[in-house]
C-alpha cells in the first residue's frame, strides 16, 4: 500500500513539475530495500570468491610458478572489478590492492606500489616471482581484510545506485585506452567485470523504473547488449584475447556505449529519489 502510494505520488509530482522527460521519485522508495539486500549478497559472493581465487594466485607465486600465476591473474581480478564501487569505499585497501604505477612518482620502482598491478609487472615484465613474494602475501591479507570489512558494512543506497554509473565512469576515464592491465594486456577481462557489475545494479533496480521510464530502460538495455556483442567477439576459452587485438572501430563503439551508459545511469539516483 505504502509503496504504491509513493509510486503514484511520485508520478504525479514528476508530471506536474515537467522534469525534462525524467520521472522522479518523491523520496527514496521503500522498494529499494529488496534490491539493496540482493546487491549486498552479490557483493559478498564476489568478495568471498576474491579471497578464494587470490589464495590460489598467491600460492602459485609462492611456489615460483610464473606461468600458473599468469594464468590466474585475470580471472582472480574479476570479482574485485565487479564490486569496485563498494570495494573503493575503503580507499586504503583499494590503493594497496589495485593501484597502478602512474599513481606513484617513481612508477614501477616506487616502494609504495603494491597489489595486483605490481605483481602483474613482476610476472610479465620481470618474469620472475622472487621480487613479488612480499606483495603476494600483502595482497592476500588485504583482500581478506576487505571481505571482512564489507561483510560488516551497511551499504549506503546512493553508493549502490550510483555504483552503476561509477563503474562506467571508471572505464571511460581510466580503462578504455588499455592502461589498466598494461603488462598483461588482460584489460578485456576487467571490462567484462566492470560491465557485469554495473549491469547487476541496473538489473536489480530495473523493476523500480520500468513502469516510470520505459524509454530509459529500452535504451539502457540496448546499450548493455551492444557492449556484450562487442566483447563477445573477443572471447577465448573462459576469458578474453589480448587487449591489443581490440580494433579501433570496436574501441570507438565501446567508448560511446560506456559514455552513454555513464550519462544515463548517472540519472538513476535522482530517478529513485536519492540525493
Amino acid at each position, binding site marked *: 500500500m505504502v509503496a504504491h502510494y509513493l509510486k503514484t505520488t511520485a508520478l504525479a509530482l514528476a508530471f506536474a513539475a515537467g522534469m*525534462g522527460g525524467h520521472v522522479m521519485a518523491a523520496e527514496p522508495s521503500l522498494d529499494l530495500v529488496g534490491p539493496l539486500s540482493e546487491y549486498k549478497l552479490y557483493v559478498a559472493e564476489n568478495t568471498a570468491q576474491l579471497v578464494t581465487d587470490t589464495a590460489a594466485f598467491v600460492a602459485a607465486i609462492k611456489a615460483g610458478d610464473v606461468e600458473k600465476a599468469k594464468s590466474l591473474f585475470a580471472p582472480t581480478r574479476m570479482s574485485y572489478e565487479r564490486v569496485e564501487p563498494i570495494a573503493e569505499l575503503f580507499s586504503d585497501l583499494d590503493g594497496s590492492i589495485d593501484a597502478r604505477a602512474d599513481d606513484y612518482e617513481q612508477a614501477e620502482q616506487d616502494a609504495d606500489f603494491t597489489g595486483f598491478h605490481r605483481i602483474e609487472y613482476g610476472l610479465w615484465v620481470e618474469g620472475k616471482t622472487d621480487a613479488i613474494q612480499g606483495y603476494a602475501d600483502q595482497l592476500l591479507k588485504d583482500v581478506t581484510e576487505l571481505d571482512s570489512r564489507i561483510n560488516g558494512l551497511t551499504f549506503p543506497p546512493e553508493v549502490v545506485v550510483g555504483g552503476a554509473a561509477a563503474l562506467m565512469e571508471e572505464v571511460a576515464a581510466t580503462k578504455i585506452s588499455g592502461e589498466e592491465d598494461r603488462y598483461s594486456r588482460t584489460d578485456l577481462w576487467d571490462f567484462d567485470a566492470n560491465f557485469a557489475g554495473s549491469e547487476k545494479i541496473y538489473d536489480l533496480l530495473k523493476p523500480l523504473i520500468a513502469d516510470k521510464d520505459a524509454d530509459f530502460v529500452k535504451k539502457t538495455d540496448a546499450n548493455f547488449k551492444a557492449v556484450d556483442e562487442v566483447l563477445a567477439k573477443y572471447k577465448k576459452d573462459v576469458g578474453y584475447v589480448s587487449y591489443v587485438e581490440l580494433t579501433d572501430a570496436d574501441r*570507438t563503439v565501446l*567508448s560511446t556505449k560506456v559514455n552513454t551508459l555513464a550519462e544515463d545511469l548517472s540519472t538513476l539516483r535522482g530517478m529513485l529519489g*536519492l540525493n
Partner: protein
Amino acid sequence: MTQREHEGSGPSRRRVLMGLGVGVAGAFTAQGADAASAPLVNDAPHGDAVTAAQSVPFYGVHQAGIITPRPASGILVAFDLAITGLDEFERMLRELTERAVFLTQGGAVPERDPRLPPSDSGLLGPEIAPDNQTITIALGDGLFERFDWLRPHKPAHLQRMVQFHNDALAADQCHGDMTIQFCANLQDTNIHALRDIMKNLSEFLVIRWMQEGDVPPVVPAPDGSTPSARNFLGFRDGSANPDSNDATLMDQIVWADSGEPDWARGGSYQVVRLIRNFVERWDRTPLREQERDFGRRKMSGAPLDGGPQASEHDVPDYARDPDGAATPLDSHIRLANPRTPETQKNLILRRAYNYFNGVTRNGQLDQGLLFICYQADLDAGFITVQNRLKGELMEEYFKPFGGGYFYALPGVAGPGDYLGARLINAARSL
C-alpha cells in the same frame, strides 16, 4: 567569492590604504564608488556585454564559420563516429543541428530537478550568450568509404590526407570521421559548446584528436583597416587572403558547386593541418633571412619589392622580378601564390589559429599553427599549393604532424531542415 565576503573585505582594504596614505583614498568616500572603482585581487576580468551578445546566424545557404569573420578563439575537434546505419546517422545529424542552433544563438539553460545531474555544464551560467559562436560540421573521407550507403555520395575531391614532403604525421593526430570547428570570442564559450555536444551526443561520437588555438586581437590601423594577426613566427598571417565579402569570389574559391553531387553544393572542402613551429631556432635566425624565407617584411607584412611605406596589402610584382632578386623564388608566399592567371584557381581561404601546447620532451616550446583553410576544389586548392611548397626555404623551421581533409556540409535552410539533410535524402533514394 560570495557577496558577503566581498563586502566584508572592502572596508578593511580601504582602511589599510588610507592608513598608508595612498593617494587614491579620495575615491573611497562613498560605498558605491568603492564597489565600482576599487577592483579586488580576485575580481574577474571585465567581460564585454557587446561582444557577448554578438551572434552569427546559424541558418543559411552555407554553414557559418567559413567566410564569417574569425573570432579570437577556436577549437578544431576530430571525432570517430560509432554509427552503424543511415537512421542512426540521420538521428545524430538532427540532434547535432538542434544543439548547434541553441549553442550559437544562445538562451536560457533548462532547469532540472536538483537530484539529477544538471543538463548543462554551467560554464557560462544560466543564460548562454552567443559570443560569436559558430559550429561548423565537416565529414571525413573515411566515413564515406566505410559505408556502402555513403560511398556513392562522396564529394568528388574528398580523399584521405597523405604525407607531404616535410610532414611527420602522427597517426593519432590525423583524419577522423567528422570535425567540428568551434569558434567564438572567448575560448570558454567554445569549451562549453564542446562539452554540451559530447554530453548530448555521447552515443554517436568519440574524440579522436583536437586542437585549440587563438588569434591575438589586433589594434586597427589609423585608416580604420585591420592589419592581419601575427602567427607564432612573428609574421602577419593571411595578408593575401581573398576578400571574404566578395560573394562572387567566394563562389569561385570557397563554395563547391559544379562537379559535386547535388547534395554537396554549397559546402566546402576543409583542410586542417597541425603545424609545429620551431620557434627557438626561428628566433635565432637573422631577420633578413626570416624575411627572405617568408617573402614579406616581418613588422609591416609588406612584400619585399615594396618601398619603406609599403603595406601588407600591396601586391608583389613578380613579373618585374623574374629571378627572385627581391622576393626569392623559393620564398613561402611566392611558391604558395605565384599570382599568375593560371594559379588563380589554386586560391584558398585561410582561417588559421595559433596553438600553444606547452613544452616538448626536449624542453622546447610546443607551439605553432592550427592551419584551417576552405576551398571549392581540394585538388586545385590546398593540395596543389602544398605540392608547390615542396622544398620551400622555411621548411626547416616547421613540421606538420597532423590534420586531415574534410567536407564542410552545406548550410541549414531554416527550422525543420538539418545538417546533411540532402545527403541523407540522397542516400535513402539510392
